[in-house]
């Protein structure tokens, strides 16, 4: 039975056994449900093999919401553990695993797919294209991300979760101090998901550069498309660093190399440096698309053109460049000397300038606008002040001399949550509400939506502002408990109440989805928000080919100007449309990748070799395959268009 011992959980607890049972039952329920309702064929034809950017976007969205739940449960458990001094709810090991997985799940498996969801769904529509440049690669990106996420998530029931923090610093993450397979999961699951992300980057840059509607010059692109272009450029240049880093980490853990060990010349700080060379641009990969969403939402509901279009674009480009020049600020206290620290302090504080430009541009867009407060707009308006708190404390942390006081305290934790939650999460919720009618053909309930926005915003402040104070008082991050005499108790109790409030807010969003699915009117126009860019110019639901005739664009607010000045976006006759074929290869290849990753984690060399061969066989198959896509005939287009117009 020695062989099976490796799959056991090193620190099992009733909660983990309960999750095992829950996971098992869910899987059985899904399989039984699909079989009972005879949906296997439907699932395969319409979803698993799809190359349609809209469906891939929706699959990203579902994954992101699932992972939000997983990461949220982690967060609640942490805050519950810290709510009172000397709490015994979780032991130290369990707490380590939870803060590690919370970080990775929220950043890589929740925020990233949420952004990918909106990018996939919106960008091709916004530029008036019929799909992305490489539709099949897009499907492969999604499935690789998905399998990476699944591999990471089974870690807590098979073999044990990573426990060295989401940054996974060596030597702590080395085999000497982290014996369980947890950190192997970290290295390999993120590697698989990261490959998918890199492919998305290449795909979307090509799409945006080459497939814009006639007349849409670069400086006439909607702001979300601009944000996506800059973001994907950062992805292409940052993710290979992560690829190399994780490969080196894997080799240290599994092949006994000495990259990051403390013997035979290894250098543990190399990990920290490379990690943040990827990690800091990653922060902007998350925030720039969010800024894009805010730009869309704010100009739509202020009923004004976005103020300072050129400076918006310029500031994003500057942010993307600076994002590669600040990584050392994550470890000012680790002794690189005053000169290095000063240089990185200056570059760090410099980022506040273009970010400030963007904030003022939004404020000037609101100025004299006819502001209509809808749910997406409410999120955007709540974002501006709360994000500013996070941003300003970031500048405080960026001053290297002062950072010695804040480093690795709850002050830091408060800072980055106050940046990421208002910055990214509010934007994603705004984007979700904004694009929901385009995705699913009905609106989410505004009353429940606004209530949840208020609950989430106040709970965010309640949960994280106390950490600024307890952090300045000296509460270290990642400590699983503290004594009563420290006086941290009341602050942490308030934080816990805030965390519970966030849970209520998110539950309300789920309820809203349920409620609106049941009761909302399906009789909505294709442009329910009276919006500005091309994604609203096509029908709802969006036909497979997006646009029957490619739009002629004259300005950065193409659809708005067409509505106001009455010029026709769609000129010409229907022509047959070339569309890509569905393919099962991305899904099958990613499944093989999953088994490959699992074998790698547990050092099962024979399955590893077999799956490696399987991966190359899939690629060879793709090389020899003849696939020229298919055409949608004019008759079919006419029929679809007439049906949609009638509806």
């Amino acid at each position, binding site marked *: 039975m020695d062989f099976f011992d490796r799959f056991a959980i090193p620190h099992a607890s009733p909660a983990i056994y309960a999750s095992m049972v829950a996971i098992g039952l869910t899987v059985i329920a899904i399989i039984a449900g699909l079989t009972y309702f005879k949906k296997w064929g439907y699932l395969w034809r319409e979803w698993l093999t799809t190359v349609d950017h809209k469906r891939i976007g929706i699959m990203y969205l579902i994954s992101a919401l699932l992972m939000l739940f997983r990461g949220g449960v982690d967060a609640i458990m942490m805050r519950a553990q810290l709510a009172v001094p000397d709490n015994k709810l979780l032991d130290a090991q369990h707490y380590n695993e939870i803060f590690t997985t919370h970080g990775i799940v929220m950043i890589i498996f929740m925020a990233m797919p949420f952004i990918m969801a909106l990018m996939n769904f919106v960008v091709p529509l916004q530029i008036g294209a019929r799909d992305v440049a*490489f539709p099949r690669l897009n499907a492969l990106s999604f499935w690789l991300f998905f399998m990476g996420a699944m591999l990471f998530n089974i870690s807590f029931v098979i073999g044990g979760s990573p426990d060295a923090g989401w940054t996974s610093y060596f030597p702590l993450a080395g085999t000497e101090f982290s014996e369980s397979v947890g950190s192997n999961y970290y290295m390999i699951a993120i590697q698989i998901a990261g490959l998918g992300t890199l492919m998305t980057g*290449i795909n979307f840059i090509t799409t945006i550069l080459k497939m814009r509607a006639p007349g849409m010059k670069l400086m006439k692109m909607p702001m979300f498309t601009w944000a996506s272009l800059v973001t994907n450029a950062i992805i*292409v*240049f940052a993710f290979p660093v992560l690829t190399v*880093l994780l490969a080196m980490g894997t080799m240290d853990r599994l092949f006994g190399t000495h*990259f990051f060990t403390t013997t035979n010349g290894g250098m543990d700080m190399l990990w920290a440096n490379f990690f943040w060379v990827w990690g800091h641009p990653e922060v902007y990969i998350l925030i720039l698309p969010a800024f894009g969403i805010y730009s869309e939402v704010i100009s739509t509901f202020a009923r004004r053109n976005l103020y300072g279009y050129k400076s918006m674009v310029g500031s994003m480009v500057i942010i993307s460049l600076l994002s590669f020049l600040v990584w050392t600020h994550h470890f000012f206290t680790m002794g690189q000397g005053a000169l290095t620290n000063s240089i990185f302090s200056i570059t760090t504080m410099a980022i506040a300038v273009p970010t400030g430009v963007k904030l003022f541009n939004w404020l000037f867009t609101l100025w004299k606008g006819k502001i209509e407060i809808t749910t997406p707009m409410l999120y955007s308006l709540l974002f501006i002040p709360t994000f500013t708190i996070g941003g300003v404390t970031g500048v405080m942390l960026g001053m290297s001399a002062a950072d010695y006081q804040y480093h690795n305290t709850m002050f830091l934790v408060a800072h980055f949550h106050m940046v990421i939650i208002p910055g990214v999460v509010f934007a994603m919720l705004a984007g979700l509400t904004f694009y929901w009618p385009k995705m699913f053909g009905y609106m989410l309930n505004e009353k429940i939506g606004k209530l949840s926005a208020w609950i989430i915003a106040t709970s965010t402040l309640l949960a994280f502002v106390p950490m600024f104070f307890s952090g300045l008082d000296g509460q270290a991050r990642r400590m699983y408990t503290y004594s009563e005499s420290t006086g941290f108790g009341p602050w942490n109790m308030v934080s816990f109440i805030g965390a519970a409030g966030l849970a209520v807010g998110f539950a309300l969003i789920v309820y809203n989805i349920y409620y609106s699915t049941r009761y909302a009117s399906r009789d909505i126009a294709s442009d329910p928000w009276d919006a500005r860019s091309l994604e609203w110019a096509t029908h709802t639901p969006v036909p497979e080919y997006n646009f029957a005739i490619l739009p002629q664009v004259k300005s950065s607010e193409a659809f708005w100007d067409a509505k106001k000045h009455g010029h026709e976006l769609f000129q010409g006759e229907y022509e047959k449309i070339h569309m890509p074929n569905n393919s099962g290869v991305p899904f099958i290849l990613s499944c093989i990748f999953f088994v490959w990753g699992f074998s790698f984690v547990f050092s099962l060399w024979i399955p590893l070799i077999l799956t490696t061969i399987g991966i190359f066989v899939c690629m060879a198959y793709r090389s020899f395959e003849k696939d020229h896509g298919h055409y949608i005939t004019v008759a079919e287009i006419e029929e679809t268009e007439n049906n949609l117009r009638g509806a």
Partner: protein
Amino acid sequence: MKIDNSLPLEYSTEENSNKILGFWIFLGAEIMLFATLFSAYFILVDRTGSGPTGAEIFEITPVLIETILLLTSSFTIGLGIHAMRLGNKKAMLTFFTITLILGLGFLGFEIFEFVHYVHIGAGLQTSAFTAILLTTLGTHGAHVTFGLFWGLFIILQVKKRGLTPETANKSFIFSLYWHFLDVVWIFIFSFVYLKGMM
């Protein structure tokens, strides 16, 4: 599929030109990948622990042979693409085959070199220096190996299907990849071997 006859075959459809741009962006990512490996190499090059230094293990002869083989293969694939533009399928296939044979020769010498390093006590686990040396070389070598299979598949396809916009596009992209590996090798040759032997 609209074919624009004013452009070379490999660029002649929209899909083709998208693929070429996409591949250039991919090469951008590859540059970052190798740049990361190189910076790790420069950081770890003197951290030899109890293992040997570069000067102690590098030998110029096999490295020079590898360099000549790979540089020549970059030239022959250029000739292959030139033949493709002239529509000379037979010459193109010949040059592609020569390219792959040269690539195979390069790989043979590199494997020999690796065996030699391990034999004289400079294995993957010896020190930080040997680990990053073998990883950097190995990453390049793995790319060449991948390229050999890829190139072979393309030769088979051109042979069977002739020069179509699709096969021409694949061949052209493969040539970009092959030239890129050559560029990386020039950096390895200069900054790993020559600098290491100085």
